[in-house]
Each structure stands twice: as C-alpha cells, then as structure tokens.
C-alpha cells in the first residue's frame, strides 16, 4: 500500500494477524474440527462460530458467571478460556443438557421453582449447578449458596435458584440410596 501524501511507502499491514490453528472440540457430544485465532475465547467460539447462543456474555471478565460451561465435566468461565488451549476437550453447554425433549432435572426444577425472571443468568446458573453436583461438595443450603456465589443474578432470584438446586440434589441423593 502506498501512502502518496508524504511519498513514503508504508509496510504491508497484516490485518489478519497470525494464522488460525486447527483444534478439535467435542461440543455437546458432537466432535467439531475448528479453525480458531489464538485470542478467540471459548465463549465467543460457542456463540459466534457454533451458534450456541444459550451461553451468555455478561461481564466478559469472569465476575458474573453467565458464561459458565462444563469443560471435561468441570464448570469454568468460558469468557476467560482461550479456545485454542482446550484442544481435545469435551465441552457441555446449556444446549447439551436436555435429552431430546426431556429437560435436564435442573432445567425442570428452575421452571417449577420460578428460579429466574429475565433469564439471562439462567444458562450459567444451571451449568454451574451441574458442576456443583458433579463436585459433590455442597450438602447444606449455606454450602450451595457459597459454592454458587460465582453466578450473579441481578433479578435476585437466589431463594428460588437455591430451592431448585436443593430439590434436584436431594432427589439425586435419594436415587443414589435406592
């Protein structure tokens, strides 16, 4: 490109940055081969490239939990995760929880307990609660509150979120006993 006004030649500008890399991710049970730039977050990859817009961008700084997904069974903030670093991982989002038309028990419980108003934090809340149950560390209501504190609900639906999570935890503990 020539900048004729001052007669100097401007070096060729590389607008695209370094080349994309190829990674493999299993997303909601389906293997995907993807070309990603190093700076693409897992959140942006899910929403912008895979059209999985259930996962929400809230603060984009790991403070609100709206972007929570499960990576290899563990809940993480997808906004602070570089997709390229998760090559080979298994990702589950809110879209991957239901089995066909049968909702995940946590999805059902959130409806029954009216555990949301605007719903923006809900996918993150539910994925986080799935992670919480995988961890098996929370037994009491206080422990659920503490271990769910990474998911903010600005509508203030916390009592109902707690009730929904508690119900599913109790039911699954009951099933485990039988």
């Amino acid at each position: 490109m020539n900048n004729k006004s001052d007669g100097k030649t401007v070096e060729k500008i590389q607008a695209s940055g370094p080349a994309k890399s190829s990674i493999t991710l299993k997303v909601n049970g389906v293997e995907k081969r993807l070309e990603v730039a190093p700076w693409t977050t897992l959140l942006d990859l899910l929403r912008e490239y895979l059209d999985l817009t259930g996962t929400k961008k809230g603060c984009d700084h790991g403070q609100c939990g709206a972007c929570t997904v499960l990576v290899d069974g563990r809940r993480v903030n997808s906004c602070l995760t570089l997709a390229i670093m998760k090559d080979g991982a298994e990702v589950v989002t809110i879209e991957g929880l239901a089995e066909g038309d049968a909702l995940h028990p946590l999805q059902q419980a959130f409806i029954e307990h009216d555990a949301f108003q605007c719903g923006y934090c809900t996918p993150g809340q539910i994925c986080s609660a799935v992670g919480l149950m995988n961890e098996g560390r929370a037994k009491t209501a206080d422990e659920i509150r503490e271990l769910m504190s990474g998911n903010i609900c600005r509508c203030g639906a916390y009592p109902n979120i707690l009730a929904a999570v508690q119900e599913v935890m109790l039911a699954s503990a009951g099933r485990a006993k039988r």
Partner: protein
Amino acid sequence: MNNFSYTRAGDIATAVSEIARDNEAKFIAGGTNLIDLMKENVARPSRLIDITRLPFDKIEETEDGGLRIGALVTNTDLAYDEQVEKRYPLISEAILAGASQQLRNMATTGGNLMQRTRCYYFYDTATPCNKREPGTACSAINGFNRIHAILGASEHCIATHPSDMCVALAALEATVRVTGKDGDRAIPFAEFHRLPGDAPQTDTNLRADEIITAVDLPAKGFAENYTYLKVRDRASYAFALVSVAAALEMDGSAIKEARLALGGVAHKPWRNTEAEAMLNGKEATKENFQKAAEAILRDAKGFGHNDFKIELAKRAVVRALRQASAMGEMGGKYDDKLHRTADQPR
C-alpha cells in the same frame, strides 16, 4: 484483546527458551487473571506460551515429610486434596475463601502466585499508574484508596497483593521452586513477592526467564490450631479488605509457636516475625493477642479511605488468634456461623 501468537510448550526446556527469547511473551495456564488483563489492555503480550501440558500437575510427598504442589495443580484440586485438607487445612480454607468455584477450577498454584493487583487504577489505562507504566504516577495515593495498602507501601505504589492462598503459604513458610536458563532455584516464600519501593512494576523476584515448577510445603502444617479469617465487603466472592492466616502450635493453654500472615494490607503477604516471637511461650489471652496486633500495625499508614483498615486489621488479628487457639477446647473448628443471630445475613 491485542493479537498475539500462541505456542504450546511440550517440555520445560522449550518453555524456558521460548520465554527467554521474547521479553514480551508470557506464560499462560489458568488464564483467569491474564486474559482479564488482556481484555482491559493492561497486558499486551506478543505471544502466549501455553504451559498447561507440562508435567507439573501432581501433589507428591517430599523427602523431608512435606508436600510438593505442582505449579499446575488447580486451586480446586489443591483445596480438596485429601492430604492438604488433613495436614494443611489452613491452605484449603484460604483457597476456598477466594474467587468462585469456576475460577478455582481454572486457576493454578503457580498462577495464583503470579496474579496482579486489583487496584482500580492499575486496571484503568486512562489513569497514570507506576505499576502499569513506570514513571507516570500513583493515582491511588490521592485517589480512591479504600482497598489499598497500609503496610510496606511506597510513594510510588500503594497496591495490595490480592491472593488468599499466598497468605496461608506465607504463614506456613512454603518454598517456591523455579527453573530458568541458569538452572533450578528454591525461593523462600517471604522472598518471592516484593514490596513496591521505587519499582512497583516488578511484583516478584522471579527472573524473566524463569518458570515456577512447584510450591513445597514444609512438614509442619499447624493442622490443630489454625484460622483463615477474611474480612470483605460481601460474604462470598470478594477480595479481602483484610485477611489473617493464623497458625498456632499450642502447649496446653500456652502458645508454643505462632505464625501470622496478613492479606489485603500490603504489596505482598505481610509477616511480622517479631510479633510472632512475642506470642511464643505466652498464654493464649486476649491481652497477648492485642499486643501482637499492635506490634504488627505499629508502622501502618492509611491514605484516607483506607484508614479504617488499621483498626480492622488489629481486630482481625486478635479474632483470628482467638479462633485458632480455641479450636482444641471447642473440640474442632471454631465456626462463626454458630455465633450468628437469626437476623444476620448469611
């Protein structure tokens, strides 16, 4: 976020040579702090060297009866490790007092040591900050400084180190193991982080070509009498205004050995071995705790909004020592929740 190139280090030698040849490069593991700083344009690395596939993800026994925590062990895995819970419960408690479970699932042991301050001005590229841009100014000294340091600060920087885990590691006298171009080093925890002085841009004594490989815990874990007391603006998921890691070895009602480290008050986890020595051999009484607290905060200096931290820190030290020393007689962990009244927020 700026554009950058990405390399995945397959072995430690590659990681070290990659970092040594590019001073704009950074290691990345959990990324919970670095990605955030990159989104804010505070960190603008030319390349990221992904170290997550290096073999530092184990917790192992050391020859002297301690534990070696691999630098890539996540905060969650460390906090819930059976041996750590049993022998070093202070560490578990400190880790679980910080961040959220999502972040703890991502964040690593080495990364926790390397995280940067959460000073608002450090994050705000529109304001001067000596830590972000050396030689500009400290905006916090005459600005909003409610969360800032009261001990060991300088005219150049009054930022605090944000970690909870590091406060416990300081009290327990852990050792940081690093590897660089010139070989391996073991850095005592007290010497790992720096005070700001006239070079607040440098948080630690880690050299540019070095990588943290592990944190070693000594055999002594103070598992009988310990407390991590964290005072913050909300009950969960907030940084400490003041925190205290108290670890005691008791001999009946007397203190045989005391360890104290404070978080949220300085550019590094704050220890005062003189104050600890004042407690050794003394009865575990409120008066003795108060003397130690006064000694720790003797040279404390507030900058306006954070003046309250001086009294708060004194009270937190006394309370942490009371809780830690009372553990045995209460037949287990002192639980503040039991002492709450019904109308207090949970």
